[in-house]
């Protein structure tokens, strides 16, 4: 078994601020994902990475950057926080794009 850890659990920032969310997994999975979960809209993919130092844009990448410097970690940066992107950000990992994804508990973002 393994676990996905997301930090922080709650993130509060000012409008226009640059904010970073972190994700760590000990499954030794190659592929990792960042999703945004808005109420009533399901999960939308922001970025994914199929291996260390790889980055692929998802459907919602504008306004975000990502970094995968180690196999076990995947960071997401909100480049300029906006009130309309208050949501829960979920990290996931998997052995491959067709396999089961394992999810972290999420980071809830509030923008003041």
């Amino acid at each position, binding site marked *: 078994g393994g676990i996905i850890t997301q930090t922080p659990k709650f993130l509060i920032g000012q409008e226009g601020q640059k904010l970073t969310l972190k994700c760590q997994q000990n499954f030794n999975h190659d592929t990792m994902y960042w999703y945004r979960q808005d109420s*009533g809209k*399901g999960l939308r*993919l922001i970025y994914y990475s199929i291996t260390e130092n790889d980055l692929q844009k*998802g459907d919602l990448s504008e306004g975000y950057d990502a970094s995968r410097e180690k196999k076990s970690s995947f960071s997401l940066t909100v480049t300029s926080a906006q009130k309309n992107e208050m949501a829960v950000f979920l990290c996931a990992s998997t052995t491959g794009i067709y396999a089961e994804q394992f*999810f972290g508990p*999420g980071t809830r973002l509030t923008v003041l």
Partner: protein
Amino acid sequence: AQSVTQPDARVTVSEGASLQLRCKYSYSGTPYLFWYVQYPRQGLQLLLKYYSGDPVVQGVNGFEAEFSKSNSSFHLRKASVHWSDSAVYFCVSNSGTYQRFGTGTKLQVVP
């Protein structure tokens, strides 16, 4: 582009009743299909997945889903629901790029 539609945002059923949650996908081929569940204050967990073979696939906790190529559907079913099944259920499709999630169906099981 592929997409997934869950037409019912909320479903309420009585404990012990049967359940069907609907899912339609748009893709000309056969995608990988998944159902995930998100229990209150918990992370998402896989219920079941399908790619080929028997169109009825069994999952955890008595859930099953049936794939229909002619209807482009992958509906989730359970014969008898329990109050602990109250959660949000997501249908997910992957046609070779990355997984796309439906908007979710919130299931409420009432006494």
